[in-house]
Each structure stands twice: as structure tokens, then as C-alpha cells.
């Protein structure tokens, strides 16, 4: 039986934006979110400020959540997962199960948008080079976001850090780990975090150890230039080889490649710029809907530039980081494209029939 509503899986920025847009054009939406609240990673991982304008992440994402929650056309299912799907475009029958409750409810949908996102690379997954699980002062980007959200950026022992090092490309651009892609946002996020640290702790020096700085478009003069010119964040081309505990501090070893000199200096906090991997939800949902995944298990699209939201299954679309590493700019654009494609599919297959 044909259905006029769209099922969106994932209540992060991509799912929220797609739901809002579909409701705006009068298309009913069922929004399924595994977590107990909407907002996705920025809320769940407690991000501090969003890039572009350094505005508070929580309030900006909550604006999106508010618009969706208030819409009579969006049926939000929290703490729920999609466990089974059958049917085809125009008439999907999807089983949605509440957390801890085996019996599922069948939801009918004319089209589906997968907005199941990413997870941060686990820096202890394959290599312990940087001692993430050994040393409390080795943290990840998302740990740093949470600390800055609480407005407290201190060592584990409560001391103020004199020197903070960011190590880029942890779990990205690495053939040995298997993630050969660039995670796209970490250069900007590290630079943004370094600015936030320098604003709070002007006596704390921040170093960013990088392979290439990838600061697209306006991130250049919104983040990269001010980080260097106004906040004196120090960029060093060269990746840290290892982190060693030395007394109360962390000794880092690497090379300053442009200066042509080895580096072996103490740091107080080391922030690992962990990249993106497909989330558990993305991997599971790809199987449930039978959509093709690429070699990194992100959802495969026909063409990353020209057809970025279609999948191998007609009527099933993808938005945001479920399809690969994306920044919020990409995610919003994809959400809009997925929303209109899903709506168009319903008009073509369901309404016209």
C-alpha cells in the first residue's frame, strides 16, 4: 500500500533539517532517533561552539530541534530503532522498535532518508601510540569540546596547562588503519578549539601538528588566519610520532618538517584530532535497507558531487555524515536535496498513482 509520508532515521542536524523542510512543504514525516533526545552529535557529545561565527552549539541545534518538535507534521519517535524493512519505493513497511522492547511497530513510508551519521574514531582502536587510554591528559576533540562547554580546560590533576598540542589526522588519511580518507572538519575544529583555549587561557600556548591544513572556503579567514594572527596558535607541519609520560607532563616526539629539525618537547594536554567513521546506526541501517556501502562502510552514493543523496535502493536517500565525512555546510545542503528528492519520489510514485 502506498504511503505519503517520509521516514527519516537519525535526529541529528541532517535528519532535523530534512524533517523541517519536508514539513514546510506539507509532507508528513516519521523521525526515528535512537537516543533519548534529538540533536545528534553536537548535543550528545556536548560540542562547545559551532564553526562559522563561534556561536553556542547547544542553542543553535536546539533551535532546529524546537522547529521540528513543534511541527504537527513530524511524528518524533525517541529511543527507537529501525530493526526491519520490507517493501519498495512508494510502499516501505518499516519496523520501529523502542529501546529494550522487542515488539516493534510497523510504520509505512513512501520514501526513506538515512541520516544516521558518524562516530568519532576510537584512538585506542588499533594503535596505542598516543596513549589515549593510558594518560588522562591525552584527550580527543570531542573531549575538548565538552571541557570547553563546561568552561574548564584543565589538566586531569586540576592544573592549568602551559602548553597544549593538537595532533591532526588521528584515524584519518592512514592506509594502515584503513581510513584513507580525510575527515574534512578536524583542521577547522582543532583551530577553533585552539582559539577557544587561547581566549580562556591567554598564557597557554597551543601547537597544532598537521600534515596539511585543510581549511576550506571561508574557514580560511574565519578560523585559520585569526588563529595565527590574532590568537598566536602555532602551526607545525609534522605529525607527532609518540607521546610519552614524563613526570606530570607529556613528552611529544616529532619533526618540524619545514624547519627541518626534530621536536622533543613537553606538553600538558595532548588533543587527538580524531576523524569520522560510519556510526553503528549507519552500518546497521545500510544492512536493514540493503543499500550499498563503500569500502569504509559509509553509505555509497552514485556520484559524490552530482548525485550525493541517492543510494543503491530506489526511494532510499542519505543525508549528512552517513555518506562519508561531512561538515555542517555539506550536511545542510544534503538534507535539503534529500528532502526534495524524497518528496518528488512520493509525488511521482504515490500521489500520481
Amino acid at each position, binding site marked *: 500500500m502506498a504511503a505519503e509520508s517520509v521516514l527519516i532515521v537519525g535526529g541529528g542536524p541532517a535528519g532535523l533539517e530534512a524533517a523541517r523542510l519536508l514539513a514546510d512543504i506539507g509532507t508528513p514525516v516519521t523521525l526515528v532517533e535512537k537516543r533519548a533526545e534529538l540533536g545528534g552529535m553536537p548535543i550528545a557529545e556536548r560540542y562547545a561552539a559551532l564553526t562559522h561565527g563561534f556561536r553556542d552549539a547547544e542553542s543553535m541545534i536546539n533551535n532546529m530541534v524546537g522547529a521540528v518538535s513543534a511541527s504537527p507534521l513530524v511524528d518524533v519517535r525517541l529511543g527507537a530503532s529501525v530493526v526491519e524493512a520490507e517493501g519498495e519505493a512508494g510502499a516501505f513497511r518499516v519496523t520501529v522498535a523502542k529501546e529494550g522492547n522487542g515488539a516493534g511497530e510497523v510504520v509505512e513510508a513512501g520514501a526513506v532518508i538515512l541520516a544516521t551519521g558518524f562516530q568519532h574514531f576510537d584512538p585506542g582502536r588499533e594503535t596505542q601510540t598516543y596513549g589515549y587510554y593510558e594518560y588522562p591528559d591525552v584527550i580527543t576533540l570531542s573531549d575538548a569540546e565538552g571541557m570547553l562547554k563546561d568552561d574548564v580546560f584543565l589538566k586531569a590533576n586540576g592544573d592549568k596547562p602551559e602548553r597544549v598540542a593538537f595532533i591532526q589526522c588521528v584515524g584519518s588519511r592512514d592506509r594502515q588503519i584503513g581510513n584513507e580518507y580525510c575527515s574534512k572538519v578536524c583542521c577547522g575544529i582543532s583551530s577553533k578549539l585552539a582559539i577557544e583555549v587561547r581566549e580562556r587561557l591567554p598564557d597557554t600556548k597551543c601547537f597544532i601538528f598537521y600534515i596539511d591544513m585543510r581549511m576550506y572556503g571561508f574557514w580560511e579567514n574565519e578560523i585559520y588566519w585569526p588563529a595565527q594572527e590574532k590568537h598566536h596558535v602555532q602551526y607545525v607541519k609534522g605529525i607527532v610520532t609518540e607521546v610519552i609520560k614524563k613526570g606530570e607532563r607529556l613528552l611529544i616526539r616529532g619533526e618540524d618538517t*619545514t624547519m627541518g629539525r626534530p621536536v622533543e618537547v613537553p606538553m600538558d594536554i595532548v588533543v587527538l584530532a580524531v576523524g569520522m567513521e560510519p556510526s553503528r546506526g549507519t552500518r546497521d541501517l545500510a544492512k536493514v535497507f540493503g543499500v550499498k556501502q563503500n569500502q569504509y562502510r559509509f553509505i555509497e552514493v552514485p556520484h559524490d558531487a552530482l548525485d550525493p543523496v541517492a543510494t543503491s535502493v530506489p526511494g532510499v536517500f542519505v543525508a549528512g555524515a552517513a555518506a562519508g565525512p561531512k561538515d555542517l555546510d555539506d550536511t545542510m545542503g544534503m538534507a535539503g536535496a534529500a528532502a526534495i528528492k524524497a518528496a518528488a519520489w512520493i509525488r511521482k510514485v504515490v500521489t500520481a498513482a
Partner: protein
Amino acid sequence: MGLFADKYPDVSYEEKLRLWDEVKADARFPDYLYGCYECGICVSACPSARFYDFSPRKIAQAAAREDIELIYEQMNDDVWNCSQCFSCNRCPRQNSPGGVITVLREVAVNNGLKSAAQALEGYSRIVYKIMGTGTQVSPDMLQPDAFPDWGPQVKQVSDELDLWRRALPPETLHTTKASWQVDERTLIELYLIWYNTGVMDMIANVDEGLNLILSDVMEEMLEEAGYEI
């Protein structure tokens, strides 16, 4: 503390920081340095970089990073390899590594760094000539001892100096003692500028003997012209 081993551990961090603060306090400095991409466009444009182990990029990098120890190291060494041609000004960030070097050199001289005195030792004759006569390098200064870095052809030129000079058509350039004659009034104005802008103090910081000789020449002329020094 910077990223590298300190090459001047006998000089205190506070002293190095004091000199760097003096560099940053220079009114020109904010226009000379923004941030560095480490792209190397300045190095590829730099004539000195072709002949010496010298990189305007590293000057900009160290300054942008505020690496106090490295800046002190450069202030004692690298900055004297720059020919101050400002080819490096083609920077996409609008830095002027050559301008940063100008300021670093001035701070080195004003603070009497031994390395500055050593670097400028070979220039005493030139400074004396310029400041004493108001003219540029004159042909008779093209001697192997004054310009060893010009290579063996300096000797060839200096041996036949009169002949080379006669080969130049303009009558006025047949002298080998001066580039041109500077009139007395101009010279007095130059002397006054050098006294009043602290140039004489800079000379004293790097070469006391030269300062004494120049003072003799200049003060006599200024007194005759009715100026009290």
C-alpha cells in the same frame, strides 16, 4: 620555551623575551608580519637564499610562532644574510620577512649584540665613506680585502680601476675616489639627521672606533656651520 634545542643557553629567557618585545613594539612590525603558511614563496624569490643557508620563511615562521629562542638565534645569525631587497614581499599573507629582518637587525644593533658588531665589521669602510662624504660606495673601495665575497673578479677590477673608469663615457665619473661630489649644505643636513635620529648611537654600539673617527669629522664641520652637538 620553544620547540627546539636552545643554541644560546647562556643567555637568559628573560633577556631573549625582552629583545623580542622590543621587536614587537616597533611601530612597523604589525604591517610586516601577519601569519605564515610556510609556503616558501619568499624563499624562491630571495637572492640570498640561493647563496647562503638562509630562509626568509624561517624568519617569518619563528616570528609568527613567537619562538623566543629561535628568534634570538636568528637575530644573531640568519638576519645578516639578508640583502634587504624585499623580493620576499610577494607573500600571499602580505608579510614582509625583509621588514621583520630590518627590525630584528635594528634591535640587535641598538642592544649591542656582539654578533651584530661582528657581522658589520667588514662594513666599517663603507659606513665611513657614506657617512663621512655623503656618497655611496666609490670605485676605489672595490678591493679584494673589502669585498672578499665578490670573488676573484674583484681583484681584476681593482687592478685596472683607472682604466675601467675611463671606459665610462660621463666626464664626472672619471674619479675613482667618490661617486659624486656632495655639496656642503647637503652634507651638514645629513650629519644633523644622523645625530638626531640616533644613527651615531647605533654606530657606537657596533664600532666605537668608527664612531670616534666619524664624530671628529662631523663635529668639526657642524661647529664651523654654527651647530652645537
